[in-house]
């Protein structure tokens, strides 16, 4: 058989096969997550999937494992698949911009979950917790506890990756809160964790060694609890509420460990992002855009503070409780 005929045959078979590829019946929403490495993200992706299911949409999930470039390629795969909408938890606030542009070029609505994109001209909806407000409220509650004890407290704060706007806002919330209690709180240590357990562990250990009288600890994310608790234990500072050696202890996120620590009485307060609300809002935003309705560019999740006094009432809204 001559070459051109063989090629024609192959092309013909290809076209035949291509035309039989089955079509999906329901519209599809593409869900792209930067990572699934912490419970927070796992809970989020499950909530987004549940909401899609509830609204009668199929979904397809891609995880980039911390690689902005892979996320970009995955979104392009979604677009060529012909998804109706996209919900993305981006790697960072800048690399999401070309992704938004790509979605815009294809005319596909996109909701950006949990991180606010840097200033750009694209069209998108961002759903984000009010990190500043939630962390300020949480820390204020902790400060009230500290004040009630009547003693002066030395404070330690674990910071996140300061390239991440969420970490910056959480630090700002912390700072604003403690500034209102100058006579009670003195911040003696700021531990940079860069969202990394090992760094948090060594940082907190060192700080507790340098300042053995620290009695007030706030972490910018709950997923660092294992590191912090371990450092506290070795510094003989890990005691339940009511014990004379108890340290005023607070966190941010509302994950499963926070839930447990609250329940067991080690943690005083935790700022909770309302994951269920945020995920529902993200999917809703996409669906409303599809229906041609206009949606606000930014949807803010006010979140809430959970503490020992409202634990029974609020724990059902805490996403970490379901793990």
């Amino acid at each position, binding site marked *: 058989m001559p070459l051109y005929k063989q090629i024609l045959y192959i092309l013909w078979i290809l076209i035949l096969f291509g035309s039989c*590829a089955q079509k999906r019946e329901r519209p599809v929403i593409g869900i792209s997550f930067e990572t699934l490495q912490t419970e927070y993200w796992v809970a989020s992706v499950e909530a987004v999937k549940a909401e899609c299911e509830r609204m009668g949409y199929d979904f397809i999930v891609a995880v980039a494992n*911390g690689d*902005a470039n892979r996320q970009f390629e995955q979104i392009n*795969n979604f677009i060529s698949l012909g998804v109706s909408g996209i919900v993305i938890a981006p790697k960072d606030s800048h690399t999401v911009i070309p992704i938004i542009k790509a979605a815009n070029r294809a005319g596909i609505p996109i909701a950006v979950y949990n991180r606010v994109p840097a200033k750009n001209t694209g069209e998108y909806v961002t759903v984000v917790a009010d990190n500043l407000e939630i962390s300020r409220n949480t820390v204020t509650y902790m400060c009230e506890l500290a004040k009630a004890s009547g003693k002066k407290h030395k404070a330690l704060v674990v910071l996140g990756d300061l390239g991440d706007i969420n970490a910056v806002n959480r630090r700002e919330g912390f700072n604003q809160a403690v500034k209102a209690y100058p006579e009670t709180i003195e911040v003696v240590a700021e531990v940079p964790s860069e969202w990394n357990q090992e760094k948090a562990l060594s940082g907190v250990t060192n700080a507790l060694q340098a300042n053995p009288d620290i009695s007030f600890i706030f972490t910018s994310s709950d997923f660092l609890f294992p590191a912090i608790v371990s450092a506290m234990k070795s510094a003989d500072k890990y005691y339940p509420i009511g014990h004379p050696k108890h340290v005023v202890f607070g966190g941010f996120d509302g994950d499963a460990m926070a839930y447990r620590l609250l329940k067991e009485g080690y943690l005083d307060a935790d700022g909770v992002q309302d994951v269920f609300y945020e995920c529902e809002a993200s999917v809703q935003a996409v669906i409303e855009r599809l229906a041609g309705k206009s949606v606000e560019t930014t949807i803010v999740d006010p979140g809430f503070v959970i503490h020992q006094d409202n634990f029974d009432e609020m724990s059902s809204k805490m996403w970490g409780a379901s793990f």
Partner: protein
Amino acid sequence: MVSIKYYLSQNSIVGVCILYYVLMALVVPGFFGANNTWNLVYNFIPLLILAIGQTFVILTAGIDLSITSIVAVASVVGGYLMSADSGLFSSPLITVLVGITGMVLAGAIIGLINGIAVTRLRMPAFMVTLTSLMFFSGLAIWLTQSKSIYNLPTLLVDAPYKTLLGLPYPVYLAGLVYLVSYLILNKTLVGEWIYAVGTNVKTSWLSGVNITSTIVFVYIISGVCASLGAMIYTARLETGSPVMGQNVLLDVIGAVIIGGTSLFGGKGKLQWTAAGALLMTMLDNSLNLLGMSFFLIMIVKGAIILLTALFNQYQPKSLVHA
């Protein structure tokens, strides 16, 4: 006329590619079609460029593990030279030209260092490039204090989407890299030397092959290819990042190996690498479209690399007649 059967027996990876394409067109909704084909092309190009550079090195029985760090350094250097935040040059054209030159130079210099280390220190390529992988990854992060660089010129950022005669710019870049590499490997002295050195270093030395310059040359090529890949990554993510391309190493070496190029050197073709890179791209794309999780994709890819490596090893040898 050369029959397709003979061609495929010599280039089995091309057959695998076609088979896979047909299979996925059948099974995966949204795989077959113009949109996704363009998408495949976009994802394929940077991988192809990196894999071509790696092919040169593997042909000499070496390996370049440092390419991801070269991508990172080039991305950071280019980002710094071009970002409006550093504001080094006023004209956008000059900015981009200087940026590209800087990136390519960075790649070439790291390649040169690798090559000299391999030839002069007489250490295994694996050790040398693993060391430089760690060193230059660290350097990129240290230089930027792990912050990304933004505000790149529109000229660069829009380039991946601009077209000439219906084809996007990156296609021309990849085409140029492929063409130049093809000419080097098949039409020049150093090309013949690359194959000879990979086949038998001792024989090559005895036969007057300039081993040092051949090996240094392939590492420079690999470095330059890595920096060109970094250029595409940087442009389309609109970011100069010190962690750019961190996860691409497996895909690159995988593409070369499943293409059929021998890790022991001396055997391999550019078209094999191109087909290997295409297969890797299709794997990623199709498994993605199937909604498979990232971790499962990694497992499948690893399995396929292993299988093809085994397959290549057990291909029937021609009978030796007595």
